[in-house]
């Protein structure tokens, strides 16, 4: 049996009972210390705190992934190589970071370089650093991703259940039905919860500016 659904932002699809069960069973990553600053996380990682390392990877994994896949349009295999290489470099060279607050631009730079290396190694034309237009497009993408990371930080600060509801809807592209199934909530209430949570997130972001 397949259950049809239509979500309000124009996506159509269907969910089998097996997929619903799988969604329910999916362990949902939660920030260990949502309020820790980037600098605090880096400091704890240097002290050998493995929970902090887990959180650092969780916090920046989407950023690295987005740079590889959206900015440089790498395929899954190359993107995974870049992803693992970047975190291996971060882990090995964390001591070299001069300012703990600079972890994000450092990760961005590492990822950018590794993506360019990957494109060159595969013989594909990458965004040429000398091409003003392509560099401008890249810079624009990076600026949007930085802005998205700021919203993401706000989402972590808002906390549960809004964090999970908004993440499932916007980032994981799940339908109301799937979210309702996963969180054991009536599907008919998900739209209003999303709306309330967006308002809460907006308030959090305005409080930060």
């Amino acid at each position: 049996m397949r259950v049809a659904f239509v979500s309000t932002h124009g996506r159509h699809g269907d969910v089998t009972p097996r997929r619903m069960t799988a969604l329910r069973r999916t362990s949902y990553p939660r920030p260990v210390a949502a309020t820790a600053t980037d600098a605090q996380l880096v400091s704890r990682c240097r002290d050998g705190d493995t929970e902090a390392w887990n959180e650092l990877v969780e916090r920046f994994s989407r950023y690295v992934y987005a740079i590889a896949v959206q900015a440089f349009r790498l395929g899954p295999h190359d993107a995974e190589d870049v992803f693992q290489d970047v975190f291996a470099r971060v882990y090995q060279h964390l001591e070299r970071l001069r300012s703990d607050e600079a972890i994000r631009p450092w990760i961005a730079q590492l990822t950018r370089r590794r993506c360019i290396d990957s494109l060159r190694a595969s013989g594909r034309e990458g965004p040429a650093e000398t091409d003003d237009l392509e560099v401008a497009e890249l810079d624009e993408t990076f600026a949007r991703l930085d802005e998205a990371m700021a919203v993401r930080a706000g989402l972590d600060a808002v906390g549960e259940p809004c964090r999970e509801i908004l993440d499932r809807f916007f980032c994981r592209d799940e339908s109301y039905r799937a979210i309702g199934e996963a969180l054991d909530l009536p599907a008919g209430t998900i739209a209003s919860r999303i709306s309330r949570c967006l308002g809460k997130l907006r308030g959090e972001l305005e409080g930060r500016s």
Partner: protein
Amino acid sequence: MTGYDIERIGELLRLLPPPPGEWVRAAQELPQARVEIDGIVARAEADAVFRARLVAHLESALEAEGYPATPSIVAALRLRLGTG
């Protein structure tokens, strides 16, 4: 960010979908894999033949020696051996 328009917030959230979970878990394993990685690097420094095999075919050389060729270990070793 200025204005904090709800639609804009939604658009920005959509820009950061999660990568595959196994990628994240592999990167998170790095601290646990450190002892293994250090051991492999030490052996490569002491054994030129082993090092040559690693440099030539890292993943298959690891598997042949019974080491786990996980993505995070492979990435860390490429970095440490200077073959990345």
